């Protein structure tokens, strides 16, 4: 069984985000890391291939400046190879263009029984790319999958819903998007990290993939304003001296909640 995982390389979410003042897009010029949301997909792919008893896990990623640090992390976890789409022309691409680029990269690897993505990225969280990608690829999909099993050529998944979950069955090839916590991502071993250094990363441009238009030219949107949201007035912060609970009681009394 061959699985392709879409992984995003993002600025460290622990650092405060910033907008580029000339383009009003998120700054992505520092070092990028593997989006933690994608580590679940990588782990799930490795487990499914392992259970199937053969095949491999490949990665596709779109990132500026030929960035590979995040890909190396996923390769160190056990993925075999990667296609990286890196092209200055892609700056400003919208979610639809991103899906088209990723679809072309998935096609370049070819032979996928299953494509996995996270439900949304941690830095942009548009949350539409997985399902857009499925549509471009002409695949059925199960988004928000929280439990996944492969039974022959059928995918069986539990899919998150507003008030519980659905059991969904779908023939392969298919695409799934997985929520955080579906599996416990492994830490790359020292051996894995060393091996990852020599695993193949095929770096291509949007032109190589034949996707056009891309970037600002392909985006049907324009940022028109960036403003500070109104701040909440500062509240009363008190140290608990054993009577902190009483503060809460009188606060609730004032609001007539009790």
């Amino acid at each position, binding site marked *: 069984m061959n699985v392709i995982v879409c992984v995003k390389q993002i600025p460290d979410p622990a650092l*405060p*985000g910033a907008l580029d003042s000339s383009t009003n897009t998120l700054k992505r010029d520092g070092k990028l890391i593997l989006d933690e949301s994608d580590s679940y997909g990588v782990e799930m792919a490795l487990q499914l291939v392992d259970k199937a008893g053969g095949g491999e896990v490949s990665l596709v990623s779109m990132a500026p400046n030929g960035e590979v640090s995040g890909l190396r992390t996923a390769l160190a976890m056990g993925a075999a190879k990667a296609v990286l789409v890196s092209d200055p022309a892609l700056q400003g691409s*919208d*979610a*639809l263009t991103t899906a088209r680029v990723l679809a072309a990269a998935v096609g370049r690897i070819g032979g996928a029984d299953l494509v996995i993505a996270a439900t949304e990225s941690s830095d942009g*969280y*548009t*949350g*539409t790319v997985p*399902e*857009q990608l*499925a*549509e471009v690829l002409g*695949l*059925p*999909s*199960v*988004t*928000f999958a929280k439990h996944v099993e492969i039974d022959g050529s059928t995918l069986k998944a539990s899919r998150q*819903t*507003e*008030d*519980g*979950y*659905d*059991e*969904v*069955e*779908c*023939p392969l090839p298919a695409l799934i998007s997985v*929520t*955080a916590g579906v599996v416990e991502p492994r830490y790359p071993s020292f051996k894995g990290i060393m091996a990852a250094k020599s695993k193949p990363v095929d770096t291509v441009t949007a032109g190589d993939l034949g996707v056009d238009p891309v970037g600002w030219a392909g*985006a*049907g*949107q*324009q*940022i*028109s*304003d*960036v*403003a*500070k*949201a109104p701040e*909440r007035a500062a*509240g*009363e*912060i*008190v*140290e*608990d001296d*054993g009577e*902190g*609970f009483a503060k*809460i*009681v009188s*606060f*609730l009394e004032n*609001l007539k*909640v*009790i």
Partner: protein
Amino acid sequence: MNVWVYVQGSKGAPTSASLELLTKARSLGDVTAFVGGDGAALAEAVGQHGAAKLYATGDLGGRLPGPAVSAAMQAVIEGGDSPDLIMFPQSYEARDVLSRLSVKLGKTVLTNNVDVAAAGGAVTVTTPIFGGNTLVSTTFTGDGPFLAGFRPKSFAAEPSGGGAAEVVAAAVPEVGPTGAAMVVATHVEETSGPKLDEAAVVVSGGRGLGEQAKYELIETLAKLLRGAPGASRAIVDAGWVPYSYQVGQTGKVVKPGVYIAAGISGATQHMVGMKGSKNIIAINKDKEAPIFGIADLGIVGDVHKVLPKLIEALQSR
């Protein structure tokens, strides 16, 4: 301007997020609703909230809505009834339909919006970023239909007094392999008490509770205040409580009269889900915790000391 609203039904009625969007759409132009499922049961509520017409696919027979409903929408649009803007509530179902439709029509999508404005044919949406401290406005370029997803509770739902909407069938065309995923069973997680996103009081617990068993404090307090218990993602991921308890960017958006955050740090992804609460009370032992930045009342202290005393005080009233 012609505006479509994607309406989602739940237990025979439109979801509150759908009614919120219908209400907003009324202020932008003529409103038509579209539902992936049976229309008859929803026609009255949809009409009361301002839509004259309701396109309905009829029962989907177990097919997932994404490929099926987007294909039905595309067929209506290409048949000549093309809106300028389609507003989607950001639910699991609607998000799939929105994404598939964007590829079918070759149109950009903008999600996570909390507001929309139209002026002279241009449509601009507003999205909060960085945990809600910055608002970005984005204008669609090119031709419509413009596709936009909205966070729940972005607008208040209000009936307009209109009569039932006219239900018009919108058949699902053959979609081929993309439509092959089928729902074989549905599970509803039972909850008692008010619903998390409708409760007047929400009491949420986070990793600061230390262990799963301590979540009982949250449940007890929520019950005493006739509210709903909620959670940060940290404890949902840890398996202490089901996902349906999660408040935040990838969980529910809540705007109760009172929100109590106990042992929650206040990560931006949590705050976007509860920042709109009228009153926020935070209990955290770290006085530098970001949650105190938006709290109306902050208690710097140990949840294991403050919560039991608070519960005792309320029980003895």
